[in-house]
């Protein structure tokens, strides 16, 4: 349909006024980040998959611009340009259009997003519970009654990984692959099968590096074959990776019981308030215990705010597609006949502001509501 009728527009605007009023009443500053944004921040941050869905164009000066594909990054840019000290606490809310090339029948290419972002909050657990509470309150104010809340917690996984004995570089690679269940399982498998066992076209070179100084081997090879140094990577970087590969071969394989433990954790799913016994059965040590404690405090905060976590669902693997989150993640699905429609999501993303130029990491929690989907559900 090419546009909305006056009735459709009015219905959406009334609903969205109810959403944003909840955020404003809670003391969130209602800002209007730019619709047109420099493309680089999105593209450098998100990579090609988001780029494929972003409307990108070139301004007359040759700079790449885009229509914002979501409002979190624009809100971060707003914060960085308006506040002298980016670590200062600020609470923002917004309501406005975002644009994406559609990837499924359900998703329109322009849609209105309502949301909030809370930067620099002093008490992290309280901020997480409060953001969830506000999201639910806003949805209820708009008329949603039947919904399901699911959350995940990357902090628990990260802590369990830190408690698991293995070389730091393996841990780093596993953390990076958390987002891709298949690659994660393969990698974990290769660590417990004995690192670097697989033969490849560079295996002979790895063998040579294992016997000598990596940088000397790389420089000799480059000069013997007269290879031009293109591609922006220095011999040092190349040598370091080869040395890591050689070290992987010598490394004691990961204890299969430890690999099982990580997989067992990732399979945990169930009612959110009764899940700690499952965490306990996993084991782990000090850091995992700390993360369990943090989880319990968050549940307590939720209850303090009048939420009932017994109605919420926890899934350890939840959030594996949402790459910029760093801790608590949540999603709210509206119950509809024959299924569920995701109408809101959010979580903690402590690295985004520093990735965008803040001098040090700034705690950040936020949510976004897909108002057009919500409207469709409520009609």
């Amino acid at each position, binding site marked *: 349909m090419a546009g909305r009728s006056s009735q459709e527009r009015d219905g959406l605007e009334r609903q969205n006024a109810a959403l944003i009023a909840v955020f404003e009443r809670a003391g969130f500053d209602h800002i209007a980040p730019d619709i047109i944004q420099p493309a680089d921040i999105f593209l*450098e941050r998100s990579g090609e998959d988001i780029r494929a869905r972003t409307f990108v164009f070139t301004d007359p000066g040759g700079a790449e611009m885009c229509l914002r594909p979501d409002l979190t990054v624009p809100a971060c840019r707003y914060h960085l340009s308006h506040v002298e000290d980016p670590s200062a606490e600020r609470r923002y809310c917004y309501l406005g259009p975002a644009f994406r090339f559609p990837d499924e029948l359900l998703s329109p290419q322009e849609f209105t997003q309502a949301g909030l972002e809370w930067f620099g909050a002093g008490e992290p657990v309280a901020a997480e519970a409060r953001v969830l509470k506000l999201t639910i309150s806003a949805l209820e104010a708009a008329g949603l009654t039947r919904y399901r809340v699911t959350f995940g917690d990357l902090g628990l996984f990260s802590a369990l990984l830190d408690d698991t004995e293995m070389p730091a570089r393996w841990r780093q*690679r596993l953390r990076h692959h958390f987002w891709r269940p298949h*690659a994660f399982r393969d990698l974990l498998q290769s660590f417990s099968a004995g690192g670097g066992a697989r033969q490849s076209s560079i295996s002979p070179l790895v063998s040579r590096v294992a016997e000598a100084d990596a940088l000397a081997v790389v420089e000799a090879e480059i000069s013997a074959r007269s*290879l031009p140094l*293109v591609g922006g*990577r220095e011999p040092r970087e190349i040598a370091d*990776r080869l040395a890591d590969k050689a070290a992987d071969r010598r490394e004691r394989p990961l204890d299969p019981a430890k690999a099982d433990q990580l997989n067992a954790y990732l399979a945990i799913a169930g009612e959110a308030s009764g899940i700690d016994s499952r965490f306990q059965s996993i084991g782990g040590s000090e850091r995992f215990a700390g993360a369990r404690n943090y989880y319990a405090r968050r549940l307590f905060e939720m209850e303090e705010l009048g939420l009932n976590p017994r109605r919420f669902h926890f899934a350890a693997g939840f959030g594996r597609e949402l790459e910029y989150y760093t801790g608590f993640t949540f999603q709210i699905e509206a119950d509809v006949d024959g299924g569920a429609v995701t109408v809101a999501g959010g979580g903690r993303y402590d690295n985004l502001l520093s990735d965008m130029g803040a001098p040090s990491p700034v705690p950040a929690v936020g949510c976004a509501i897909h108002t057009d989907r919500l409207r469709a559900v409520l009609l």
Partner: protein
Amino acid sequence: MSILTFAMPSKGRLMEAASELLGRAGLGIDRLGAERGYRGQLRGIEDVEVAFLSASEIAQNLRDGKADLGITGQDLLEEKIPPDEGSVMLLLRLAFGGADVVVAVPECWLDVASMADLDDIAESFYERHGRRLRVATKYRNLTRRFFAARGVTGYRIVESLGATEGAPAAGIAEVIVDITTTGSTLAANHLKVLDDGVILRSSAVLAVRTAGREDPRVQRLAAALAAPV
């Protein structure tokens, strides 16, 4: 019977090989109009009009319904037509125009053998170099699909419309996705194909609008083109 539009490459190896096969089956082509006209008529089958187009336009013409069947490269067909698009189908792989679409990196990247290595590098590239790893290609869609299927996300595509193999040396990109027959152009540019970096083993293909695949004229052309070169 309505006229069937048969799109053929206007020049090059694909055009020559296809014309020869059709000629052997008694299906010569008369180019209409001026000496090298862009329209032609097929001898031997009634109501077929030949449209000579650049190979890259043929897939688009099929998708838009401006052509009913056509000869083009499988690489171009898969690049221009999404896999879930049902309106055009590959009817026949032909015995010519073979080439591979590959992922290639600089030879001096001695530590990189596989897509997993590339993923590893892509992930830390931003931290080390302040920007994303860049992939130069004219195959934007094939690249995205292949990289996504292997979980590689931390890169960006730089559109390249010619001499893609020169992109790393020119500092426009670090990695390329390009088509190669013998690999000699890659080698001359000090690039190597990743162990698991073959995206597509392409050849010339006969593609057809799905709705018209049972048309006897289509069947006859397919039979003529199925012969060995």
